């Protein structure tokens, strides 16, 4: 009898995943401009969803204010490149670090709130960010600013190359986030997190420092979210407080992705992102009706299938594509 973490499904998935990754890396050569942009957008949403899922599904920190860090990251990109003279790629890393730093005082304040009050508190914080940045005239105040042409050109000379670079950065970000989430959950910290999620009281009595674990998750998520935010606004080339800190774009859609895909699993956000974009591409012309449908679907899923699509699959077939659990394999002769 032996104990293993992986399974056949996981190994197959890994192989397929590697092949898909190769195809995706090659996308600038086979995909059209619009498709490339769409894929990039998908990757960035996937990253945001995976991060939100880590916080809510694993750490029990439900935030409806992650747009604070998305916008913050975007603004830091602009600030660091325009005023700091940093190359955009470096500025993105800088945005990540600054995002993590600003998250420290934010977390210290917000962690005084619990449960749903914590959630609304994160929203308030996002509003504070939005209102504050709207006061900074150097960055365009209430109407925002555009990324200067010379900074855009410094990424690469031709538009084609720039778009490929932006695409690869988006793909890289998604890979980085998923890998980071996966490795974190496999680590001791991650095990502690899952223990907390399953039974906070028991976890606490085992000596797991709940507060610190959640704090670390919040800070790390904030930093990576800021990084994604920087990438988003690098793509958009223009930033404004309302766009940067939009609840709809950076929180509502992300939440729907995670809920529909399956909260508390790594596979869930991936499925959710695909479903979300499939819906968007087919339904978006309907405007507000599309959002109402999204809201209804999220409510129905939460009430009837709270573990999402992946949860339904997993309950039926008991598979994990990202090996996180442990399995006991009996010997042949048992």
């Amino acid at each position, binding site marked *: 009898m032996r104990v293993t973490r992986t399974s056949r499904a996981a190994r197959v998935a890994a192989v397929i995943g590697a092949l898909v990754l190769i195809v995706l890396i090659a996308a600038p050569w086979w995909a059209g401009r619009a498709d490339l942009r769409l894929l990039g957008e998908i990757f960035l949403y996937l990253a945001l969803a995976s991060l939100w899922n880590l916080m809510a599904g694993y750490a029990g920190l*439900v935030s409806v204010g992650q747009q604070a860090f998305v916008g913050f990251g975007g603004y830091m990109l602009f600030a660091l490149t325009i005023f700091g003279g940093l190359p955009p790629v470096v500025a993105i890393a800088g945005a990540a670090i600054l995002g993590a730093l600003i998250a420290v005082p934010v977390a210290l304040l917000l962690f005084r709130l619990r449960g749903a009050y914590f959630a609304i*508190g994160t929203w308030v914080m996002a509003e504070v960010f939005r209102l504050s940045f709207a006061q900074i005239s150097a960055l365009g105040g209430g109407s925002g600013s555009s990324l200067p042409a010379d900074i855009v050109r410094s990424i690469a000379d031709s538009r084609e190359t720039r778009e490929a670079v932006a695409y690869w950065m988006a793909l890289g970000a998604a890979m980085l986030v998923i890998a980071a989430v996966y490795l974190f959950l496999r680590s001791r910290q991650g095990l502690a997190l899952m223990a907390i999620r399953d039974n906070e009281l028991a976890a606490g009595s085992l000596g797991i420092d709940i507060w610190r674990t959640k704090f670390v998750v919040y800070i790390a998520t904030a930093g990576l979210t800021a990084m994604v935010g920087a990438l988003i606004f690098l793509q958009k080339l223009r930033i404004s407080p309302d766009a940067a800190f939009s609840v709809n774009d950076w929180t509502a859609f992300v939440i729907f992705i995670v809920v529909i895909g399956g909260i508390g699993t790594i596979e869930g956000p991936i499925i959710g992102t695909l479903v979300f974009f499939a819906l968007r591409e087919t339904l978006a012309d309907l405007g507000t009706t599309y959002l109402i449908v999204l*809201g209804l679907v999220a409510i129905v899923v939460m009430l009837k299938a709270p573990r999402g699509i992946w949860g339904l699959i997993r309950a039926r077939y008991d598979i994990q594509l990202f090996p996180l659990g442990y399995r006991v394999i009996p010997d042949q002769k048992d």
Partner: protein
Amino acid sequence: MDWVNAIVQGTLLGGLYALFAAGLSLIFGVMRLVNIAHGDLIVLAAYLGLTVVAATGWHPLLALVIVVPVMGALGYALQRGVLNQTLGDDLLPPLLVTFGLSVIIQNALLEGYTADPQKISAGALETASFQVAGLSLGVLPVLTFAMAVAVIGGLQWMFYHTALGRAFRAVSDNQEIAQLMGLNRRHVFGLAMALSLGVVAIAGVLLGIRTSFDPSAGGARLIFGFEAVIIGGLGNLWGTLAGGVILGVAQTLGAKIDPGWQLLAGHIAFLIVLAVRPNGLFPRVSG
């Protein structure tokens, strides 16, 4: 004198915020539910008021006679139809379901009324004012504040001097044992939500008379109500009134310094209270 005026106006504004908060506080007290769609329901009530006024030609305050029961019935149906299914130990379902509700309400209002800002006209009430000790007080803000005091006083009285209030407190303490007293908790929760939305109806109509509103205004109203509750302290309705007043005063003082600072000043006051008094200024229970 200007500063005194700002403080007075802020206090009266606090009455409106207390009305936003009272419904939120009630629901949290009875069933530990935080309704993220609360602000959007306030806006919905405002639109409802607008529609009733347009259809009947009545004065908006009279329209309350229709809006309050309709919102109350909506609350009961919502609770029994959807929200009761989310209650339990897990905090995600009620949060995410009410969030979904928020999106639905906002977009349904957008569909029905377009994004144009609207206002409920109340004739003379909108601008009427009277002089007290050299200050000019608007009738509407004073009325709103009086309504807030009356509503909170009424809720307090209900909670502590009626059978329904006993039922609310009992169910909030121990759902299971409350059932042994013959209390159907699904019905009791429905009544609590009906009451909450009745208060929301009053808040919404008064809001609609006071300022212009549009489908996306819900988020800010939720935040103001929430901030008033947290500043005042959980589980204390009078504390919520105090919280609303503090928030209102912070906002008007901030606006005096710089009009663009109004909202930010309120948020900062909230954050300061959160930092030094995380349980609020007059807490009765810990959240």
